[in-house]
């Protein structure tokens, strides 16, 4: 338990700090790298929560694909690779205020709702019942329609993105 909590503390701290750096750093490429840190930390947290498959997908899709996409984006838009003073707009204060209002509300509501509730201890059977296989079964039975829909979504997004992004 303690170990888990320690891990959690470490990962959470890493995630939060990295996330803050993502939104504050003055270097676009750094921001992308900090994002990797966040995503990886979150993936690790998924493992803590016995969702290994999701963790794996998180690494594969996010770190493997999305961040790479971002880096392409950074390059293609010729962003300054070094520090750029011009990354923020003039409404940081307001943005922070909005974030704080949201954060305050959520924090209060979450504490009100869950207080000191603990996550249940999982037996091996539980872990197995939450593994890849049941997830796969669920996707291809109950969530078949969303699955198919997502496939078309990806196709459409792919074609559409190409149409828009290509130089002609």
């Amino acid at each position, binding site marked *: 338990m303690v170990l888990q909590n320690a891990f959690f503390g470490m990962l959470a701290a890493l995630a939060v700090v990295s996330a803050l750096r993502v939104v504050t750093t003055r270097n676009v490429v750094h921001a992308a790298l900090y994002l990797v840190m966040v995503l990886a930390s979150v993936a690790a947290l998924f493992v803590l929560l016995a969702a290994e498959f999701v963790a794996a997908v998180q690494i594969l899709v996010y770190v493997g694909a999305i961040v790479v996409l971002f880096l392409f984006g950074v390059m293609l838009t010729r962003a300054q690779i070094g520090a750029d003073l011009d990354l923020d707009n003039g*409404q940081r204060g*307001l*943005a922070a205020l*909005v974030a704080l*209002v*949201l954060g305050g*509300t959520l924090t209060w509501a979450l504490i009100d709702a869950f207080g000191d509730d603990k996550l249940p201890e999982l037996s091996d059977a539980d872990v197995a019942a939450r593994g890849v296989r049941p997830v796969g079964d669920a996707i291809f039975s109950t969530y078949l329609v969303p699955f198919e829909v997502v496939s078309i979504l990806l196709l459409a997004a792919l074609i559409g993105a190409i149409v828009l992004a290509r130089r002609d």
Partner: protein
Amino acid sequence: MLDHIWVIPLVTFVSFWLIIAVGKRLPRGGSEIGVAALGLALVLSTVAAVQWVDQEKVPSHEPAATADAGHGAEAEAGHGAEAESEAGHGAEAEAGAEAGHGAEAEAHPAIRESVEHNYQWWSSSSFTVMVGTHVDGVTVALLFVVSLISFLVHIFSTNYMEGDKRFTHYFAFLSLFTTGMYVLVVSSTTLQMLFGWELMGLCSFALIGHWWEEKANTDAALKAFLTTRTGDVGLLVGITILFWIAGTFNIAEINEKALAGDLPQTALLVAAIALFAAVIGKSAQFPLHTWLPDAMAGPTPVSALIHAATMVVAGVYLVIRLYGVFWEAFDIGAGGVNLIAATGGFTILMAAALAFVQRDIKKVLAYSTISQLGYMVMALGVGAWTAALFHLFTHAFFKALLFLGSGSVSHAVHSFDMKKDMGGLRSHMPVTFWTFIIGSLALAGFFPFAGFWSKDEILLGAGSNGYEFFLVVGLVGAFMTTMYMTRCVYLTFFGEYRGHGHPHESPAPITVPLVVLSVFSVLVGLINSPWLFGGEWFGHTVENEVFELAGVPVHEFSPAYALVSTAVVVVAFAIGYVLWFRQKLPSGVTERSSIARAGYALLANKYYLDVLYTDIIVGNLKRGVAAGAYWFNRVVLDGIVNGVGTTARVVGDGVYRFVDRGLIDGAVNGSGITADASGGALRRLQTGRVQQYGIMLFLSAALLALGLVIFTS
């Protein structure tokens, strides 16, 4: 004829349409139709009068045909020929029949039973409105006098109006006017009277404004119509109140119920006052008399017909007809003083005084008419019902005569200004002169001219019924009348001719009516003399149910009154003769005496009443109150929200454009402006910056959630 009296108004009504339709194409411009129609009407009226006189009298205390005992019979009789009534009348008749009335102690002579026919006009489930004719002595007397004078005026006009560009219209309106008077006279209901009443008002308007190219004439026409209509408010209200308290428009029934004491006294009084307001308007009593002198702007025959003999007496006629109401409401039998008598009395003196300062011969006659109408009203107020009617009757002849005479004069001198354009006409226009003299004598009340008899009866009534004060008023009035007529005759016919050209006597169509009327003016008074035709023949002929039910007192002819009044007249003539014929008028009296000057100014300005009406009341209505109301309309009402908009204007940049497009007035505009301005303000939220939109989105989501959390907990 008495059963089909509706034929008479129909004749003139048809004549009206015929003249309108084909008059212009006829050789005499439609006047022949009018003359013929009036001739026919005169014949029919005469036939009706004869038939009426031939009717059997019903003794007042004879038991009624119905089982009702005692006084019920009078009620029955008062109700007229109910057996002949048409459908729907039954219910009212029953109600009316129940009313009994304690007869006056003194015995009344027998009266003739009036002839009444009623037909359903329209009905509602709660009541039925009837239309019908009512013929009694009053009716036939009026019919006769109206027909005769109208006929003569028609004849007079054929020459007098010759060459007028609206000759045809003139005759059409004369016909229509006569129709109106007939309708008034024969109607059996108050509502119908209103029809005739207003129809006459319309024709009076049209005929006063006959020469409408001149603004003064149209002003006078408008004034006449509006003034009388102001009084008519009272008529509307009065008829309404009587309808509700008596449950009917039927005049006979209303009288019966009023005299039977069945009607609530307060409502009756209010109704009577309201009706009297109409009388004041129509019969030109103080304070609504001012229209009548102005109405002289119309052609002179019109003045003779409408503003002397017929329409102006409609008010008097109304009181005569609804005498039960007035009798009961003002308690006329009690003596002392009452509104009617006071108004009439005051009007006599006021108008007579005004007649002194006029230069215009027609104006003199107009004020004289007002004054004489005052006599009639006063007579009704003092309970001299027969006298009032009789004065109405005689006055019609001699005043029409005087007016037509003045018309004849003006025909010769092309002016009405006595001081500037007349004088010495007696030799140039002998017929006119002599007839005018006869008319003046009749008006002044010299024995045995018509005016003497009727005026004498009024004075007698005032003196005998406990209205001694009004006896004095009447005598003073007679005195003044004689004086101003002396002045008028002198200025017109004596002295040097002051006008231009050579005046000649008028042709036959003008002089013949003058002669006819002067014959009547001499003789007609005799029909009610105590010594001829069995004594007070006229009075006994016209006395009707109201007269009887009310128990209007009847008085024997009194030589004392006759002598006193004759003395007054003679003295007045003597003074007048000295003043004018002998030029002993204290010249410069107005220069020397400030009181006299003020008095003259007051009279010359007609007591400033016109100033009050025209400048202050009407002027303020037009300019002040109406403009104020309109201002209120535009500025306050339309502006309430406008004001909101004005303050909001700074908010929106486009508001000026909005205003420029002319959207200024109106509550809607104001809210429109407000809406537009707030739209402009709200637009600024739409900055175009996507991240500001983002802030709005996230912040709204957060606040919405937070608000709902608080709201639901």
